[in-house]
């Protein structure tokens, strides 16, 4: 079966910085943003991808917990607690 827009989803770690890309952790609460790319340790990013954090997908920070870490992020209908360290690998448009 053909996968639509396959090329758009190429996510090999980009070295070129897209000017509009921002760190997920700098996004205000409840603002929906699109994932641009993941940039971090290979194994950890592979798991994040597998959990649904794929480029092009819309995500929202829904909550900051009392100590400021982790962030609660909504992705594909699920709420996931991401440490700031992990959120820093996710670049958003």
């Amino acid at each position, binding site marked *: 079966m053909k996968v639509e827009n396959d090329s758009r989803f190429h996510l090999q770690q980009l070295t070129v910085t897209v000017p509009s890309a921002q760190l997920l952790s700098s996004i205000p609460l409840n603002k929906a943003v699109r994932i641009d790319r993941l940039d971090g340790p290979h194994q950890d990013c592979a798991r994040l991808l597998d959990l649904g954090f794929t480029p092009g997908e819309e995500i929202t920070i829904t909550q900051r917990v009392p100590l400021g870490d982790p962030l609660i992020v909504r992705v594909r*209908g699920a709420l996931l607690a991401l440490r700031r360290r992990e959120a820093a690998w996710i670049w958003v448009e």
Partner: protein
Amino acid sequence: MSTQTAENTPATSKDHVVCLVGMPNSGKTTLMNALTGGNFKTANYAGVTVSLLRGRSKPEFGTPRNIVDLPGVHSSVAPSPEEELAVEVIEGRHPKVKPDAFILVVDATQLERHLKFGGLVGRQGKPTVIALTMSDLLVRTGQSVSALKLANALGIPVIPVDPRTGRGVKELVAALDGLSGLLWVGNTLADVPTEPVAAFAHIQDILRRSGAVTRTAQPDSLTSRIDRFVLHRYLGFPVFFLVLISLFAAIFWMAQPFMDLIEAAFAIAADTVKGLAPESVLMRFLGDGVIAGVGAVAVFFPQIMILFFLMTLLEDSGYLARGAALVDRPLSYLGLHGRSFVPMLSGFACAIPAVFAARAIPARRERLLTIWILPLMSCSARLPVYALLLAALLPAAAWQAGLSLAVIYVSSLLIGAAVAGIAARIFMRHRQPSLLAMELPAYRAPRWWPILRMTWARGSAYLKRAGVPIMIVSAVLWGISNFGYVPGAPIASTPMEQSFASGLGQRLEPVLRPMGVDWRVGVGLISAFAAREVFVSSMAIVFHVDSDDEETQQKGLLKQMNSATFPGTTQRIFTPASIIGLIVFFFFSLQCFSTVAVVRKEMNSWKLAGLQLLFYTGLGYALAVLSVQTLRAFGVA
């Protein structure tokens, strides 16, 4: 497309195994409950689902079949041990559990993520039925999902199920029967690519074309509202501590009347048995050895049940994951993980289910560190020991003993944290922390009946597993303290002073004296390695307390302890210094062979389990001697 004939997997076969698979929080275990009527066994007893559950489906669902509930899998990339186990079974690589068919449990509010996981199941080419759960939550996200359209698109039966009420379970089993009777064709899930980006695109494409989902999802407003409160910047921690305090208050106070009742019942039973033939050694053995031994375990049953009940309730409602998220930052500072929270909490009831609960921690290093500090958490087996020792130390006011107990509990957590922090900084300095990425399930109102069934399954499994060693040790201890070898005579019933236990204890006397106690307490300490609470019943045995008199056993024991002196002197054994020494010893020492055995199995290392035993028991002894000698130097007897 994959096809398979059904001949090689007849549903009637005795060995036919249906595996329940899915992501965590999909309602798998609740479905297991509904399918089997709660009649399943844990391969290991668990704090929170961490092991394979095996059971047989209820007769009302046709031919009974073997059902195995696998641990939930978030992702097969860099998996935790429980995820790895589940993937191993799904892929048919497990030596014991070979699935013949799958029930794939899919959360209707998270179709993309759950169907993406379904790809792994689809690729196995085995008969698969999808149980669509959480449909009741779709109201909150403003969607509706058509099971029929989804089934058409996937080529697999999709049955909406609410395992909490039992709705749809019968249809689910019927669909499974339908599969094994016919030539099995279809299963688009098998075509889902393994590469995640392409896989999600593929699933989105299937969903879009099927038209199964109406409207895009709105955020679950109830869950956001509750999260705004329980994860609030200022209220978050007060709420968290209130939950924990209520949990412990419930464990100790709600259990008390039941514990008194059980204790009284066993005392009556023991007396009755001994009363049948007062001179018979057999009756004394049954009364003081066996029945009293069983009683020593059974008395903890209410506490363990209440703990399992409340943990299941917290897990089921969704709060447990929030608690873990709240404490992730302090825990990761100590080299632990947010997921260490559940094992540590369970550790306050019993280290054994806690060690199993640590399987949810992904990285071996964080799991090891969590397991390393679990013996410090003040388990409920220490409670009767502390209760006895504190009653002897502070006889005047109950509130002082209560306050001291609270101090002991909080210290056990703080010292555990310190040990983890120091160990992480010495041995694991240059390691990166592992990924948190932990799912917070949607809040749901608890359903009492499934929770009670789950509590019973977990609690009774615990009792069976822990009960046997404790009973055996009680019986052996009774034997060695009531029999002895007198030169020139056959081995026979002897007074305590000539018994085997006395001989053994007296050899340990040089080690025990610095702690300020004599061999009789030593016998108690050794027997406590079966389980710490055995200390209390062995003290009653070695100090010859008769439960026949009017007073309760504890009062009688306290009286005996008060008047106990070192043999041949008038020096009292139980002084403030020696009692504090004993408390310190119990605080640190790993007096629990079951824990050692379980740690060895979990970490697959005798070295590690042995090291842990020596470390904590050595530390306990050294600090006990240090406290006793320091107190004496300052003039405290």
